C-alpha cells in the first residue's frame, strides 16, 4: 500500500501562493471577508506562514497544510472517530459524523484544522464553480487538507478503466499540480524509486516539529546553501 508524501523545496518556493488559490478552488473552501479573517475565521486548507526555521536569520515563508502525520495528535482525541488515519496514511474526516467539538483542532500543533463557524456561503453567481468531486461541508464541522483524496479516487478509477496500475503521475494534489516554481513533489514515500523518497533522504530534508513525534508525511527541504 502506498504511503503518500509531499516534499516542498523551500529553496525553490517563491511564496507566490498559487498553491493556496489552487487548493481553495479545488476543495470548495469558502471565501472570507476582512472581518471574518481578522477574527480567525479565514477558511484555508493551505496557507503561507512565516516560520522561524533553524539556521535562517529571518522567518521563512512556509506553505503550511495538514502535515498528514503518521502519528496524528488530532485523530487520537476525536471522541467519535470522525477524523482518522486511513490505510494509505491520509488523515481523513467524516463530515457527517463530526460533532464539532474542535478537540482535534486544538490538539493539532500545526493549527491546520479549520472549523466551519457558519454555513459555507458563495454568492449565487459563483455557486457553479464549486468542484462536484469534493463534498460541501455543513456548518459546525471540522475540515482539513486531504491531499486531494478525491483525485486519488479519480486516478484509481481511470487506471482501472484503462486496465493498468496507478502510475506516479496519475495522482497529484491541486497544489502540486499548479506550483509554478516546481517546488512541490508528490508521490509514494514507500517506493524507493520515487522522486519524493529520494528527496526525503536529502540532507536538506526536515519534517516540521518532528520533535513532537508527529511523524509528518509533508517534508520540507531547507532553504540556503
Amino acid at each position: 500500500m502506498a504511503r503518500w508524501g509531499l516534499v516542498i523545496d523551500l529553496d525553490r518556493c517563491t511564496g507566490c501562493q498559487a498553491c493556496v488559490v489552487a487548493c481553495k478552488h479545488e476543495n470548495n473552501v469558502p471565501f472570507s471577508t476582512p472581518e471574518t479573517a481578522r477574527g480567525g475565521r479565514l477558511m484555508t486548507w493551505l496557507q503561507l506562514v512565516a516560520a522561524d526555521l533553524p539556521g535562517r536569520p529571518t522567518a521563512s515563508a512556509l506553505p503550511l497544510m495538514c502535515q498528514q502525520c503518521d502519528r496524528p495528535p488530532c485523530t487520537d482525541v476525536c471522541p467519535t472517530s470522525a477524523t482518522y488515519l486511513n490505510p494509505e496514511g491520509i488523515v481523513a474526516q467524516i463530515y457527517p459524523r463530526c460533532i464539532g467539538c474542535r478537540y482535534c483542532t486544538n490538539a493539532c500543533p500545526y493549527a491546520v484544522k479549520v472549523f466551519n463557524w457558519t454555513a459555507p456561503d458563495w454568492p449565487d453567481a459563483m455557486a457553479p464553480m464549486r468542484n462536484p468531486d469534493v463534498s460541501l461541508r455543513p456548518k459546525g464541522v471540522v475540515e482539513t487538507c486531504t491531499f486531494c483524496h478525491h483525485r486519488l479516487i479519480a486516478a484509481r478509477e481511470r487506471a482501472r478503466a484503462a486496465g493498468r496500475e496507478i502510475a506516479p503521475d496519475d495522482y497529484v494534489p491541486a497544489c502540486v499540480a499548479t506550483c509554478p516554481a516546481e517546488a512541490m513533489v508528490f508521490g509514494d514515500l514507500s517506493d524507493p524509486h520515487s522522486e519524493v523518497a529520494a528527496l526525503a533522504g536529502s540532507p536538506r530534508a526536515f519534517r516540521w516539529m518532528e520533535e513532537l513525534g508527529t511523524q509528518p508525511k509533508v517534508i520540507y527541504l531547507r532553504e540556503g546553501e
Partner: protein
Amino acid sequence: MSDAHEAVIQPILTIGPVFRRWAVALGAVVAWAAIAWSWQLWHGLGATNLGRPIYWGLYITNFVFFIGVSHAGTLISAILRIVQAEWRRPITRMAEVITVLVLFFGVGNVVLDLGRPDRALNVILHPHFRSPLLWDVSSITVYLTASSIYLYLPLIPDIARLRDRTSGWRGRLYRRLAIGWSGTPRQWQRLERAIGVMAVLVIPIAVSVHTVVSWVFAMTIQPMWHSTIFGPYFVVGAIFSGIAAIITAMAIVRRVYHLERYLRPEHFSNLGLLLLVMTCLWFYFTFAEYLTTWYGHEPRELAVFNAKLSGPFAPLFWMMFVSCFVVPFVILANPRTRTIAGTVVASISVNVGMWLERFTIVVPSLSNPRAPVLTFMYRPSWVEWSLMAGCFAAFALLYMGFTKVFPIISMWELEAAAPVPVRPVVAAPLPMGVRP
C-alpha cells in the same frame, strides 16, 4: 402536626413575594439566554467570537468551572460523613444539591460548545475510547448518576415526613419519591448502609471526574496544557471552588430562610478553615506549575507564560491570583476576620478567581499556538455572555426551586446527631483554631 424543624419545613411550603420576584428576574435571564441559544443554533458557532486558533473559549471555561464547583458537594459531604464530622449535618444537603445541579450546567456547556449539538449522540453511537473527551463523557455520566443517588438517599426520610403533612400535587410527588418509607428499623439500617457505600464510592468518582477534565487539556501537546500535575491541580482547584460555592450558598440560604439556628458561625469558621487549607494547596500547585514552566524556558511554553504574566492576559491572571490567593488567605488566616461575612467575601472572591483561572488556562494556550498562524484577541460575544449568564441564572433558579420542594437541611440527620456541641474539625493542629 407540629415539627421540631418547623423553621426548615416552613420555607418549603410557603412561597413569598421575594421568592417570586427573584424567580421572575432569574427566569427572564434564562429566557434571554434561550433566545441567545436559538440564535446560536441558527447561525452556528459563528455567533461566538471564537476563531482559529482560539477554538475554545467561554463555554469550555464554564464547563471546567461548573464541573469544578460540583466537587462542592458530594466530595465534601462524603468526606465529612466518612470522618464522622458531626458539624457537617446541616450542610451536607446544600452541598449535594449544588453538585447535582451544577453538573447539568457543566455538561450543558459542552453541548453549547458543540458545532453540531444535534449529533451529540454520535459520542455513544461511534465512541472512540482513545479520546479523553470520551473518558469525560463516561466519568461525568457515572458521577452524575452516583451523586444523584447520593443526594436522593438521605432525602427519603425527609420526603416521607413531608408526605405525611401535604396533599395535592405535593402529596402525590412526595408519595412517589418516598418509595414507601415508613421508618422501620430495617429501612433505617438499609438506608444507613446505602449512604455509607455511596459516600465511599463517590469520592474516587469525584476525583476521577476532575482529573479526566484536566486530561482533556493535558493529553494534548499544547504549551502549558501538557502538564503532569494538571490532574491533582484541577482536583484541588475543584474542591477549592466547591467549598467556596458551599459557603456562598449557605450564607444565602441562611439569610433568606432565617436558618441562623442551624447554620451557625462555627460552620462558616470550619469551612473557612478548610478553604484556607485549599488556598494554600492551590497556591502550592500554581507556584509549582508556573515555576517549572518558567525555569524550563522552553520557548513555546514561555510564550504562553509571558502572555499570562505580562502579556495581554496579565490583568486576568493577576486578578485571578489576587482573588484566589491574596484575598482568601488574608481573610481566612486571621481568626478575627474569619467571620461569616469574612468567609463569604473570601468565598465569592475564590469563585471569581477560579473562574478566571479556568479562563486563563483555556484561552492563552490557544492564543499562542506552536504554528505561526494568525491569532487574535478573543473577546466573547454577546451570545456567549448571555448563555453564561443564563447558566448561572438557571442554576440559581433550580436551586431556589429545590428549596421549595425539598428541605435544604437534612432534618433526620440533625435528629440522629448526638447532642454534642458543634466542634471545629481541625481545631487542634492550627494555632488560630476556634475554641469550642
